[in-house]
């Protein structure tokens, strides 16, 4: 069996999902990336999502996605739609006690953040999920249930209501699909 035929591990999926929520830049947001993203949707048989995506990543398409990303997650008029931080949904501000508790959980599992981003950022939490799964398959369920899903569901609803570009819509739906508890 070739490497390509090996089953996809959940840890890899989480790492990929974290990537989908990073600010899209030409250094990585290119046709190869789009190919993997589309293939993920194909495997899920989400044909409508595939059809809504652009054929190729052009400068214009990249800018369109960047503008929507900025509007949804950074700053915008009208106000930023859905800051990707748990604290905003649980406590109404950034870097609140929810961020503290999230970091505390990371530490209890033997991890910590490595960059300047807050621990309760969507990308950081997805990175953390991938590391948990790397260590032991199935070990991400507790974090998903207790920390991730409570705020992500509110965040997801806001984004899906306001999102304009199909790429971000699909990314959010992918994250939702792979983080939903099936037990």
């Amino acid at each position, binding site marked *: 069996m070739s490497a390509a*035929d090996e089953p*996809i591990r959940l840890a890899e999926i989480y790492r990929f999902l974290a990537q989908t929520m990073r600010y899209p830049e030409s250094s990585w947001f290119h046709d*190869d990336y789009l190919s993997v993203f589309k293939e993920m949707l194909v495997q899920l048989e989400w044909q409508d999502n595939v059809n809504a995506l652009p054929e190729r990543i052009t400068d214009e398409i990249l800018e369109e996605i960047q503008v929507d990303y900025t509007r949804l997650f950074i700053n915008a*008029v009208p106000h930023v739609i859905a800051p990707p931080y748990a604290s905003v949904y649980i406590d109404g*501000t950034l*870097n609140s006690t929810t961020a503290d508790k999230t970091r505390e959980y990371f*530490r209890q599992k033997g991890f910590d953040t490595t960059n300047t981003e807050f621990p309760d950022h969507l990308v950081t939490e997805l990175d953390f999920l991938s590391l948990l799964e790397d260590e032991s398959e199935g070990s991400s369920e507790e974090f998903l249930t207790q920390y991730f899903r409570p705020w992500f569901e509110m965040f997801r609803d806001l984004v899906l209501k306001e999102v304009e570009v199909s790429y971000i819509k699909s990314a959010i739906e992918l994250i939702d699909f792979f983080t939903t508890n099936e037990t």
Partner: protein
Amino acid sequence: MAFNLTRRKFLQTASLAAASVPLANVVAAEAGVAKSPFTPSGTIADKTAVGGICEMCFWRCQLVGKVRDNKLMKLEGNPKSIDNGKAICARGNAGVQLLYDKDRLKYPMKNVGKRGAPKWKRISWDEALDTCAKKLKATEKKFGAKGICMFPHGASAKYPMHYFEKTVGTHNVSEASFFQCRGIRDTAFVNTIGTPPGENVDMANAKVIFALGGHFGENVHVSHVKRYLKGLENGAKLVIVDPRFSASAAKADEWVPVKPGTDTALMLGMMNYIIKKGKHNKAFIEKHGSGFDEFKEAISGWSIKKTAKTCDVPADQIKRVANLLADNAPNVSIHPGRHVSWHGNDFQRQRSLGCMMGLLGAMGVKGGFVKGKGPKGVGKVSWPKGDHHEEALHVAADVHHFAPPGTPTDLIRDAAITGNPYPIKSCVIWGQNPMQTIPNQKKTIDMLKQMDFVMCVDVMPTDITMYADILLPEGSYLERYDYIKKGTQWNLSGKQEQYISARMPMVKADFERKDQVYITNEIAERMGYGDKIPVKTLPEMVDKQLAGAGLSIKKLVAENGIHVQPGKDPYGVSEDLEVIFNNEEIGELGYPSSPTYIPVEEVPSGHFRLLYGRSPVHTFNRSQNNVWLHNAMPENPVWLNDAMAEKLGLKDGDRVYCVNSEGVKSRTTTSVKVTPGIRKDCVYMAHGYGSMNPALSVGVGAGIDDQSLITKLAVDPETGCHGMRNNFVKLVKA
């Protein structure tokens, strides 16, 4: 969408072999989380960050920050402070909320939409700085440095302001703190007593405290309020001249509900009365006065009767207040005011306050006008002045001869809109929100729309940022070094001490926020002024400034953020002090040489004069999005006289719009506060509410934006500063 496929099933069966590259090739090599030795939270020590200097308002109290795990938990007054001490106000406490406000600017952004209706795109600092420098340079090349204008505000704006003003060489710089606030006071006093007064009255040791419109308690500057309260505690009589029963008026022995705009007449009437009664300080005037006889003659027509009629104040009260001041002189605090850009006749009023100080000899004595003797040696760091020969707009036009530093705002705005006397095509806005500080928002928008380039640097997405082409996020006052604060103990008669402190970060800046030295230097480098850069970093700048006093950041940290040293007795006046009652230089330039009352427009029938002031929990518009402060005072009720409310059929709590005499209707509504504590001819509201930028998700539309109703411009002829209380409104039930 085939949602019947489960995650488990997908993992068992799916393959991404059809993709052009493997999954691992398209994800970032580094994750935001990594293995780390376990650190129990209970073992993480709390730290006290010293050297904080508040900038929720511009009084700048000294702070310490309680920091846990690199996160600011709480702010307190620095126990070592001999200024504000351990006390900070509600706004100071709420700095934590500003730091972590979800609406704060985080990354450089480019507007790919329109000015006023922006579509933001996050960009790199390199792209942002390249764009700013390229656009500014293009303007400089085509129109000269004067084609660039700047609206700065706050400590972080000083360094870039000096770059554009001195090195690039544009005079077209206008600070709201001067032209829409206290500049009139400063130049009026310089031309009366030879020095800008600050708020340096020794209230703690006064027998009488006298203020025109000062609403201490609603305007909370901690050490200032400490002086005021100490004075009251010591038995000082309080006189508050205000059309409204303010927090200070509520504590006053005399509340003088003067007709708005006539304060100068009141001052002249009282001074004339004091002179006529022979109660002025003849010895002081003999020694330090200049032009007293001409002044005396000039104000001689202001009888008590005429004053009472002009000011709509009972004659007996005017006499009572005048006698109170004269009988307790010289230990009287004649407060110089702070925000004094009221009616466009303000230079004369401020001159009259200086003259009253001189008339009573209330200078250099306990309770009088006294400047503390602060420490020497703190140096300055600035940009070198280029070889520029342009004149500022007001100098070239031979107007506003007593303008504060910079150029009167309206001259810049008019030049930009009309292209006369020359085009102004690039605009740099740094920490100021001209949409809320400058009257007539339409003109401000017209000015911005004709620009080739607009850049904003700010902490929050204020209204003006909607008009930026490039919007840059700045570290807040809690995340950077800069301001050097120095002075003396708050009670001038206490143990004589001096202090020096420098702003230090409580925590590091999050996201991609940068400081003013980085941003300015990078732009300067790209504009070809790299060889003129005075310092490479903010800490270097602060250390250079401190070196003159034998200090450094390191030494200040070792001293818990504040260096305290023995001080000097501040009382007494210098032999060469001159109080210029009649200033011939002012007269020669075509203005009244002795303080003169210039009448203001009467209130049109069916309208009220719109007055505004401060909320104790906000610094005008700057703090509107702070949810802690917002919850303390969510909107700005409009104060309405009870008899007028009955006449209009309005009850306390009713929702109203305001419509001004030029037909401009407020975008939003607010509640009515029905009270006998305001004159019948005016209404009052706290300024800064009703933001229009939806990016301020807390402050947007909360209360009424009084600035939107200030469409009729009044400009003080001597200074070119705005008068902002000459607009009239009707209340319309919502």
